[in-house]
């Protein structure tokens, strides 16, 4: 069963992901791709606490994720993959565009230099350029914080 969600969210695992997306997608595993978290035992411990007992969580660096993406995508269990930033998701898309076909923008919050596009999506000019490049390369980009919310396509998001 292919991975059901490829989400960019700077908070990584939290309630919207575990409950909001995890339940309707019946997710049984989460892949968290982040080089810093991969090296941090205490952060991994806290993320494990945020995940229900019947959902497993895998921590991977971007390089490890590239190596294992096909394997995770062939897992019979429904799964979700998370990155905290666009650059990491772009690495995965570029390595496996046939697997990472749709990218969900779930949470890119305010920081200096970013402009508000949606309440939960703030983008700087390089972010917008990267999103346009990913779309040009075949990725479908959708902003949607929760499955019950409207899905906003890239053209609408950047208009």
């Amino acid at each position, binding site marked *: 069963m292919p991975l059901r969600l490829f989400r960019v969210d700077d908070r990584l695992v*939290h309630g919207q992901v575990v409950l909001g997306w995890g339940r309707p997608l019946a997710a049984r595993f989460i892949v968290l791709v982040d080089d810093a978290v991969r090296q941090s035992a205490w952060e991994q411990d*806290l993320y494990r606490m945020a995940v229900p007992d019947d959902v497993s969580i895998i921590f991977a660096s971007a390089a490890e994720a590239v190596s294992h993406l096909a394997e995770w995508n062939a897992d019979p269990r429904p799964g979700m993959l998370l990155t905290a930033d666009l650059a990491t998701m772009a690495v995965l898309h570029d390595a496996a565009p046939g697997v990472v076909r749709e990218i969900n923008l779930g949470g890119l919050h305010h920081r200096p230099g970013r402009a508000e596009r949606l309440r939960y999506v703030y983008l700087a000019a390089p972010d917008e350029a990267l999103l346009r490049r990913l779309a040009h390369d075949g990725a479908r980009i959708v902003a949607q914080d929760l499955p019950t919310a409207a899905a906003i396509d890239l053209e609408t998001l950047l208009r």
Partner: protein
Amino acid sequence: MNTIKGVVVGHGGLAAALIGAVEQISGAGSGLVAISNTDCDRGTLEERILAAATPGPAIVFIDMPSGSCHFAAMRRMQAMPGVRIVTGVNLAMLLEFIFRREGEVDELADHLVQVGARAVMAH
């Protein structure tokens, strides 16, 4: 002995609401500082917490374990002497804190965890 600072960090308006309730019940200013995670990224939230809690001694109260507020506090302060991070904040814990904030921070943090846990029950 220094007075221990109290910083309450929560999702949305929760921290301010908890502090408001503490002050309503106690009938006095609490000296607690509310911090919300609304409209800020990880780095901004970390800076807000750090600015409110340092220099210590301080106790940083967090609404939910493993939430963004917890991560933000842990990243910058988990090994900081004189600062303790306590999760699962509730009203009982905060009321106890405002009347005992002249003690030792480590001892008080451990005591507040017990007070907060005792306030959670099922009938």
